[in-house]
């Protein structure tokens, strides 16, 4: 499993390195993989977006600029000979899932010039809330869904993505000010946590992070292990890799003063995940955030190809885009395991042995005749009913066999409900006629008929005080 993880990490790092190489140039991102038709049509749909150096989508790219590769291990990729279907996407109807991640560290309660203030409307946090409200109002598709979370030293989720904007606005007003050791800014760890929460959401996903400062990990600055992250300090590559794996683009709104306090890697995170950075000081830019995201999706490319049959629990898909400055790549994976899983590494002729063994054992079983052999005549209790059958079975190898309640009886049956006599019934064997006869003063039945005496046939059922006793003469023919 460690090898698997290593492969994923190395694949992601490769993708990361290749995209970093072109971080300031064009980048390609797989926003979604749809393998829902894999079983029926053998095809996989890949939604790809290409962004330029300014983060704006690159339009009108031809099919010949893309190559598709598949890999069972994330390392050795096989080129798919032909792209099946290729089209530019306009599938905005299904809506976008946004997660608004708002900085709630201590510095957000200063004014935009980093000064202490008691005027709540002048605080950066109020500006951030206003920016979110602007964003919410600019959303035009009713199928869009919005979730809300905040971060400082700790990540706190307030709502999963919901369609109702008013709910989010209401929750926004209830985000509490940080107290005690909550003033730190765990940007990367919180982004990573946000991706985790966003995993289960299907469809297109974008995180909108509002930040005023740099990543200030709790463990490094407080000098003690973090409640949730322990001694781990996240690097910015981690949320980038996770966002790329999940096809989540990060859009950042910067509240830092003139860029001085802005996080150095927030732009990297945004660009490498196909997002962009906006400056909170520029009100016109804030209004454009939503249309920018939608524009990006409207300019996605849909690539459909025939999947390979290489056995793997998950398959890695690599899209290579021949950018002007050199090829850029993106890698994502989809689930491809079969019901029985992966084949054995090698075929051994010994594999046939269990099949032969099972068939042989079945054949041996078929030879067994589940038949009774001729034996002694017996009486056997098959259902004690409400009684206590002290004797379960008895061979009738005496002239007389007594069924009764006494311990001296050959077959002792006791009941607290029905009165059973000490000698309730007697089975007598007539050696000359080879017949067994049951007789007695007690109340008993043979084949559900009350009798005082009767010659028994093999298979007759005697009922004494509720106990069902079967008489068998031992013959098989």
């Amino acid at each position, binding site marked *: 499993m460690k090898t698997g993880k290593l492969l994923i990490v190395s694949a992601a790092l490769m993708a990361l390195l290749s995209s970093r190489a072109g971080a300031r140039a064009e980048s390609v991102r797989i926003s979604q993989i749809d393998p*829902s038709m894999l079983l029926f049509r053998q095809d996989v749909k890949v939604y790809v977006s290409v962004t330029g150096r300014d983060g704006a989508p690159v339009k009108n790219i031809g099919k010949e600029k893309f190559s598709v590769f598949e890999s069972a291990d994330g390392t050795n990729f096989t080129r798919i000979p032909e792209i099946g279907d290729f089209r530019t996407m306009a599938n905005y109807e299904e809506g976008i899932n946004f997660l608004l991640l708002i900085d709630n560290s201590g510095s957000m309660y200063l004014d935009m010039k980093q000064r202490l203030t008691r005027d709540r409307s002048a605080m950066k946090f109020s500006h951030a809330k206003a920016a979110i409200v602007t964003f919410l109002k600019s959303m035009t598709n009713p199928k869009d869904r919005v979730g809300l979370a905040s971060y400082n030293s700790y990540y706190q989720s307030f709502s999963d993505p919901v369609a109702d904007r008013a709910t989010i606005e209401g929750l926004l007003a209830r985000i509490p000010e940080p107290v005690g050791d909550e003033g730190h800014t765990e940007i990367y760890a919180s982004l990573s946590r946000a991706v985790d929460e966003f995993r289960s959401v299907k469809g297109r996903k974008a995180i909108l992070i509002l930040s005023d400062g740099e990543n200030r990990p709790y463990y490094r600055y407080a000098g003690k292990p973090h409640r949730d992250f322990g001694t781990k300090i996240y690097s910015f590559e981690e949320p980038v890799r996770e966002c790329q794996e999940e096809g989540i683009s990060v859009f950042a709104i910067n509240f830092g003063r003139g860029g001085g306090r802005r996080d150095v890697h927030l732009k990297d995170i945004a660009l490498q995940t196909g997002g962009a950075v906006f400056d909170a000081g520029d009100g016109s830019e804030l209004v454009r955030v939503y249309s920018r995201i939608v524009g990006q999706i409207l300019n996605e490319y849909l690539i459909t190809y025939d999947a390979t049959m290489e056995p793997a629990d998950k398959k890695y898909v690599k899209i290579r885009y021949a950018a002007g400055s050199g090829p850029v790549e993106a890698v994502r994976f989809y689930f491809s*395991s079969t019901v029985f899983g992966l084949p054995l590494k090698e075929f051994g002729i010994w594999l046939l042995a269990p*099949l032969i*063994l099972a*068939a042989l*054992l079945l054949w041996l079983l078929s030879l067994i005749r589940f038949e009774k052999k001729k034996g002694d005549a017996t009486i056997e209790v098959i259902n004690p009913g409400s009684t206590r059958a002290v004797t379960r079975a008895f061979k009738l190898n005496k002239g007389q066999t007594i069924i009764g309640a006494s311990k001296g009886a050959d077959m002792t049956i006791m009941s607290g409900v029905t009165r059973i006599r000490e000698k309730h019934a007697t089975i007598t064997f007539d050696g000359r006629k080879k017949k067994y006869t049951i007789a007695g003063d007690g109340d008993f039945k043979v084949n559900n008929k009350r009798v005082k005496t009767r010659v028994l046939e093999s298979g*007759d059922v005697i009922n004494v005080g509720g106990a069902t006793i079967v008489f068998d003469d031992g013959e098989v023919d």
Partner: protein
Amino acid sequence: MSSIKRRIFLCLVGLLAGLAAWPAAEITLLFQAGFPSYLVFSVFLGTIFGVVIGAFFGSGDGIIMSHRRSIITGVVKGMAIGAVGGAAGFFIGQAVLFLTGEYLIHSMRRFNTVGMPVSRAIGWAVLGLFAGMIDGVRSRSWRKVRVGIIGGISGGFLGGLALEYFRIAFPGTVFARLLGLLVFGLFIGLCYGFVEVRLSYGVLTLLNGRFKGREFLINQKKLGIGALQKNDIMLEGYHDISDSHALIRVKKDDVFISPVEKGRVLVNDDPVEEHLLKYEDVIKIGSAKLLYQYK
């Protein structure tokens, strides 16, 4: 065969079915990359799997009755129905696995230890649902179909889990799938053995003769009793039994017995035409005596 022996026997048949299905599955899996699509691969592997499972469980009734022709027809019918059931089960199981796996792989951090085993188990449970039905369809018993479904789903789910966790506990093992298939077969056998008695309309137990102790479950609406193999309850080795001697019918949960043509049927020593069976009635057909009970 008594009830206990029948249960043990059915479990054994289930284990043997799992044992036989393993190499059949492994060999097919080795050639996965050579198949043109997941669709063809799933149908092919499901057919192979169903044929093996169907053949083993199909032989069960014949072996219990020690009747070679019943074994052969049971195996052939089981294979044919198994091929259809296995293909359908594997195909739908694969579709469900793709769906759950794709969802969980992107939404669960502990995918390898929780998500994958659960996805696999769900896929196996769907396969089990169909595999468990095979013997019920073969014997035209809807109650047995229901019982098989219970066994197949539970056995499939646990088999799929066993496979994954065995693989996690012993990385590199080649026997994980074998363990899964043994659990799979065992559970179907267990359910046939343990649940079918409870879901049946009653049991007829032979009280005398060569096959004393053998139990016949009344798990279908109509059962023929007679000397010929075509009967659901074949009384072989008894005197005075005609080819088609009597008929058991289930009407609104009541069980009736009636003679067929010139057959003579005694219930509690009295000849009957159509008789509603009561608990512990003693039925005499030729020289054979049967006890009617329900549990």
